[in-house]
C-alpha cells in the first residue's frame, strides 16, 4: 500500500529538517490525517513502526490526529449531513470540502537542539 511510500517520504523530510537545524534528538512527530486524505491511519502507524528502524525517527513517537471529513455550502455555510448529495438544497451550489478534511500534513517536529 502507498502508506509505506508516504512514511518513507515523511521520515526523509523529518531527517532533513533535523539535520538542517543540527538537532541532537527528535522527541515527537505530529501529523494530521483527514478522513478523505486517502490514508488509513492504522496502516500508516504500522508502516511507521516498520520503517522508522535505523532512521533518526527510530525512537520517536508518532502523534496522529484524525480529522473527520465535513462538507458545507460555500454560500450559506450550512453543513451538509453525512452521506448527503453534495449540493446545497437551499442555494443549489456544489458543496465545499471543509478545511482539513483531506489533509495529510506534517504538523510539527519536537526536537532537541544544542
Amino acid at each position, binding site marked *: 500500500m502507498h502508506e509505506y511510500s508516504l512514511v518513507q*517520504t515523511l521520515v526523509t523530510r523529518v531527517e532533513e529538517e533535523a539535520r538542517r537545524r543540527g538537532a541532537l534528538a527528535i522527541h515527537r512527530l505530529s*501529523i494530521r490525517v483527514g478522513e478523505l486524505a486517502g490514508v488509513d491511519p492504522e496502516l500508516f502507524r504500522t508502516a511507521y513502526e516498520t520503517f522508522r528502524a535505523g532512521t533518526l525517527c527510530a525512537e520517536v513517537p508518532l502523534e496522529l490526529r484524525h480529522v473527520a471529513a465535513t462538507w458545507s455550502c460555500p454560500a450559506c455555510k450550512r453543513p451538509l449531513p453525512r452521506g448527503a*448529495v453534495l449540493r446545497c438544497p437551499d442555494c443549489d451550489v456544489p458543496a465545499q*470540502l471543509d478545511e482539513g478534511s483531506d489533509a495529510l*500534513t*506534517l504538523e510539527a517536529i519536537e526536537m532537541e*537542539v544544542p
Partner: protein
Amino acid sequence: MCTTCGCGDTELVPVELHEKILAGNDRAARHNREHFVEAGVLALNIMGSPGAGKTGVLEATAKAAAAKGWKLGAVSADLATDNDARRLDKAGIPSKAITTGQACHLDAELVHRSLHGFPWQGTDVFFIENVGNLVCPAIYDLGQAANVVVLSVTEGEDKPLKYPVMFKAADLVLVTKVDLVPHLDVDLARIHDALARVMPRPRAIELSARTGLGMDRWIAWLEELRGPIRKPREVRTHLHHAHGADEGHAHEHVHTHEHEHEHGGEKHGHGHAHEHAHGHSHDGSEEHLHGGPEHAHQDGAGHRHRH
C-alpha cells in the same frame, strides 16, 4: 543552548511545519504540468479498478481520435507486464509501459521519467493510464489536466460510496460496459446517485467501448478540455519568443486570431467569445482546466455562449 539561564543544557523546540507530506510529489507534478501546458498537450490521468475497462476505452478512443485528426499517446502503468502498452500500440496509440514493480500507484516522478525519450510533445491528447487500483493513485497529482475515473457497471452501484477519495478526485467518471446492463441487476440511476454523494460536481458519461455507445459524448468532453489547453500554448510569452520573431507586438491578440483560424468551423465564433469573457482570469490555470465545464454550468451565461 538553554536561553533561560544560559546553563548549556539543550533545548526542546517545537518546529511547526504544517506542510503537506506529499509536497515533494506536488512539486514534481507542477513541473510535469508546466511541460504539458507549454506543449499544448492535454494530459489525462486515467484511473480505475483492474478490469474496469481503462485500456478498452482508450482503444476505442483511438478510432474516434483518428477521425478528428488528433494524435494520441500514452504511458501505461502495470505492476508486472507491458500488455496494456502493447494493446494500445496495436490500437494505434504510441505507448510506453511503466512497470511499477510493487508500487500500487504512479507518482509524478515516475511519470516524469517515463516522458524522457518518448515523443509526447507531438501529441494532442496524452493518456497516463494508472495502475488498476481504486485507492492509492487518487492522492498523487501527476501533472494532468484532469482525472478520469473508469467505473464499469459490473463493479457494483455502491463503489463510489466505498471509495470516496478516488471519486472525489475525479473530474469525469466513465461508466463503462453499459452494453452489459441488460444482463445484470444494475440500476444506472443508483450509480449516478452514489456519485452525487461523493462528488460535489458529479459528471459521468455512460459508454460502451464495444458498441461505441456514448463515445461521442466522451470525445466531446475531450474537445471541451482541449480548448483552454491549446490557448495558453499560443499566448505563452517565452514560446512566443521561440516561435514568433515574426510578430513583434500584442501577441495575445495575434495568437487568438491564429487560434480562431486554426479551429475554424461553426464553433469558432462562440469559442472566441467565451475566451474573451472568461479567458484572462483563468488562462493556463489548473482551475480552469478542471472547472471549466462546470464553471460554465454554474454561471449559465458562459455555457450558452458556446451554442
